């Protein structure tokens, strides 16, 4: 609708995150940290990941994620820890669970329905072709 609404919102917190010195030295861990950060929602901003936000809370969470990575936690552990703190609202990629089943399954379902519809249309042609020989 109107992109400027987004602008008005982001005005409060110009979007750039990650202060110098925050990043981990180990490039593999840092890559994981960035990937994780992009999937975690900044709780005080609107629709920004903690990777994009420079809100203090987002910074805290970035530091937290990196600390857990250094401690050797897996991505799954870290996500679970964040959910424990802030609830599922903090995950930009909803977990596959009974209450998100519809969300994850619907695209496939629509695709299959469409495929079925197409198959029926095409099936009719095949039947017609066998019943009425070409002139």
């Amino acid at each position: 609708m109107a992109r400027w609404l987004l602008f008005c919102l982001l005005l409060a917190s110009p979007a750039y995150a990650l202060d110098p010195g925050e990043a981990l030295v180990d490039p593999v861990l840092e890559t994981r940290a960035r990937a994780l950060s992009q999937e975690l929602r900044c709780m005080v901003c609107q629709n920004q990941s903690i990777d994009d936000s420079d809100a203090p809370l987002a910074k805290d969470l970035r530091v937290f994620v990196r600390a857990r990575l250094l401690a050797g936690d897996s991505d799954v552990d870290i996500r679970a820890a964040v959910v424990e703190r802030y609830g599922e609202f903090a995950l930009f990629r909803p977990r596959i669970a009974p209450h998100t089943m519809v969300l994850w399954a619907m695209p496939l379902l629509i695709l299959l329905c469409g495929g079925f519809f197409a198959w029926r249309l095409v099936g009719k042609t095949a039947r017609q072709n066998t019943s009425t020989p070409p002139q």
Partner: protein
Amino acid sequence: MIAELGHFALVMALVVATLQAIAPLYLARTAPDTALAIAMRASFIQFALVLLAFAALTYGFVRSDFSLAVVFANSHIAKPLIYKIAGVWGNHEGSMLLWVLIVAAYGAAYARFTDIKDGFAARVLIVQGWLGVAFLAFLLFTSNPFARLLPAPFSGQGLTPILQDPALAAHPPLLYAGYVGFSMAYAFALAALTGADDGGNWARRMRPWILTAWIFLTLGIALGSYWAYYELGWGGFWFWDPVENASLMPWLAGTALLHSALVAEKRDTLKRWTLLLAIITFALSLSGTFLVRSGVLTSVHAFANDPERGLFILAILGGFSLVGFILYGLRLPRFAADKPFQPVSREGLLLVNNIFLATATVTVFLGTIYPLILDALGMGKISVGAPYFNAVFAPLTIPFALLLPLGPLLNWREGRLKPLQNSLALAAGLAVLVTCGIMLTRSVAHGGSSLMIIALFAVALWLLFGASLDLAQRLAPYRSRLTQFWRLPASAFSAPLAHAGLAVMLLGILAATQWREEIVVAAAPNQQIDIAGIALRYDGLREIDGPNYRAEQARLTYLTGRHQGTHIFPERRFYEAERAQTTEAAITTDLTGHLYAVVGETSGDKRVLRVWYHPYVAFIWLGALLMALGGSFALVTRLKRA
């Protein structure tokens, strides 16, 4: 005085729209010619009146008439003239006036340009009349742009600085011309449903209008994306924000509609689906307005989430959709059931296109409203963001792009793949070869890519080569005069350009997201910064004065490469009147990538600088432009034929 004139013009426009909506309905049976004549005149007069009101509000903004509430709240004397004018639609009331203006403009344009003057045309104008009534009433009763303040304030509150950008002049009008344009799809669907099954003739008459709407919406979304890219300060181009999704849904549905209308027109089948799609596309345009204006979304950003307005728009959305769906249900039996067709044919592939685009539309819709539904049901708060949409769209894109090039290459009715075998094998081979090349050269610097990314690169290239094949096939009959390009038929370029545009956009998205480089440093003057093989020097900072802001401006100098010796100037601006700040990134544009520099806050005696390299990012918007260009060629073809 001028404002009162504008207000009066709006009231009169409502009266005329009511006449346009009702009178022809009564006369349709007894005096069809009079009915059409009334509908046509009324749509001209309605447009003229709304234009007058729009001019009056613009006058208020240009003259900084702070006795007008909307000017007071959104303007300031010190603002440059272009933002005073563009500021007319930089707020809720003014933007709804623009919306109404475009509704009236489409109605008037249809009355002016329709080539066949019959009952169908009258019915299209009646529906447009009802739309005019609904939105004029909304404007006058909930969002009057001409409300006065007494006593008049001395100065205005100014326009949000982030909106003070040239893009504000074009982005909302383009977007609205797209949204509102799809009201024509709705009007045509209703006109078709209330008439007899004319063998898809309505689809032929509808196509130029939905093409127009689609071109505008494509450009509007692309410009919005580019605006966000350079303004928000780090170079993201799409955020899967509900507001963006609200524009993407009608675009996806509208794209499906363009293709299915083609089948309805040429092959007299898929008519029922096309009619439904036309109604849905407009309903999605309206629900975009509703979602943004009403405050139901958790990420409502800023102005105008007034529940009264939300309810009013919900009533408009509900009313028009309901009428559409009820008419659809009642009149559907009059339309012949779909004629079956061959799977390997152009219509077969267009059906596949519709299945994928419908799936994409539902995915965006579901992702946008799912958190609201769960919340309303008390099943917890969740977020659906970019990772979800990427996870669904990436695997969806692969079969979609794989099948897409076949459509235009196949004939209607019964296509044959055999004669295409060699050229298709060539395109596929090239796509694989180029993908391998890209992966080999890039993996040195960026590490390997996932299988999904490699596959996406390959299908994007396949799409590009497929579109080239399509163009070659279309131009084959004109082989002898290829150099006289102005004599080539416009129709030959439409689909190939639009499809190549999608390919180019995909390549841009893939490159920009996969190979983006970023560096964050606290820099002292004369410090060197290296990124993506480019060396820059931070020269220092100075303060400058703009027309209505002060700014800190950093200077960086290219030490190497093509731009060696040139300077770039990222800024941080402080707007006094609005008490706000913005970051103005310095972007060096090359076709192969953008260098994107932003100046941040102080860190001791140093300055935080953030520099990105966004490889091939311009391809994203270039792709959108190609799509719109393809659409324009199709439109030109159609207008010439009419």
